[in-house]
């Protein structure tokens, strides 16, 4: 539902831009579309034998549509290239491509697709959606903040996920005594102003 109405909103904005090309739209807040992948980061923090380590996904992409005046109409699809992971431990970088972990051969991307965006005030939002990793989809609610940086929008937030929910780390890794179940995910997603 939301995706369709947003698609409509986007195409309406686009047609409006074409039709009233010469007119100033400055009375209307700028809306944002499209992710600037190079300026976006998805990182994570985890604990191994009491040691906190940081990792990152170097490649991601997606679509996003956000009008600050109508945040409830916003939508986002984020796709993360799992093979682009750095885990903070070099030896683990290749290990986590294996079947017991992300199984990147069969499931190369993790995907988040929003279903509903709720404004909770002062540039803060709750984004409900579905997170799919390794063929498993789970509903998640992700807090996000919105700010502008020049003519780009930055959406930032963090949330905890349980690697066990997505069978990330099977077999000997399925116990959480050495490597914790909780993974703190931090995202910083840049989007460009719609033309």
């Amino acid at each position, binding site marked *: 539902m939301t995706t369709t109405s947003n698609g409509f909103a986007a195409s309406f904005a686009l047609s409006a831009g074409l039709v009233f090309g010469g007119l100033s739209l400055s009375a209307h807040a700028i809306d944002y579309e499209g992710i600037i992948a190079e300026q976006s980061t998805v990182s994570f923090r985890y604990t191994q*034998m009491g*040691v906190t380590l940081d990792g990152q996904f170097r490649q991601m992409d997606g679509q996003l549509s956000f009008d600050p005046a109508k945040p409830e109409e916003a939508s986002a699809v984020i796709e993360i290239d799992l093979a682009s992971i750095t885990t903070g*431990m*070099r030896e683990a970088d290749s290990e986590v491509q294996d079947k017991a972990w992300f199984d990147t051969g069969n499931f190369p991307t993790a995907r988040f697709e929003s279903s509903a965006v709720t404004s909770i005030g002062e540039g803060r939002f709750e984004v409900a959606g579905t997170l799919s990793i390794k063929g498993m989809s789970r509903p998640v609610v992700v807090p996000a903040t919105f700010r502008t940086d020049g003519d780009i929008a930055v959406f930032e937030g963090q949330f905890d996920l349980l690697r066990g929910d997505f069978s990330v780390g099977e077999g000997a890794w399925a116990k959480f005594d050495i490597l914790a179940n909780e993974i703190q995910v931090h995202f910083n997603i840049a989007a460009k102003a719609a033309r």
Partner: protein
Amino acid sequence: MSGATRIAPGRSYTSVAKLLHWIMALMIFGLIGLGLYMEGLPFSPDKLKYYSWHKWAGVTVFVLVLARLAWRARHRPPALPTTMSPLMRAAAHGGHAALYLLMVAIPLTGWLMSSAKGVPTVWFGVLPIPDLLDKNEDLGDLLQATHKYLNWVFIATLLAHIGAAFKHHLVDKDDILTRMLPNFTRETKT
């Protein structure tokens, strides 16, 4: 103190020195064994666990060697037997100096290596040890090689140390070995 007779109390090590020597001896053998074993393991939870244990024990040995050096500075070890030649005395002192140097340098390179590899040490999973270096994989590899190389030198020096102790006991038949044993003091008193 040095004015006393030859069979002076100073012929044996203090109980603290003995305790530190034997605790560290056990820990160091364990650490070397664990280090050699864990390095070749495939990436697994056990490997991560053993690495953490190795680091915790290594930090403990580092603390113990500092305590031991502080103790030694205030409690001079008993003099070497007069039967030893100047060359043998120099070898003994040199060997002991090398052992102390390695007991400090090896944990230190392990600590630096952990920092450079970006996996900091949290002592017993509770107390974070400060990182002495920023993450730098190449430097981490260099420190790992150094840590390993120093350990081979350490193993050779330890074999010489143990061999010398038995040589003193079995060939020279002096008290070098027995004066480090726990009950030596009691025996001499009787």
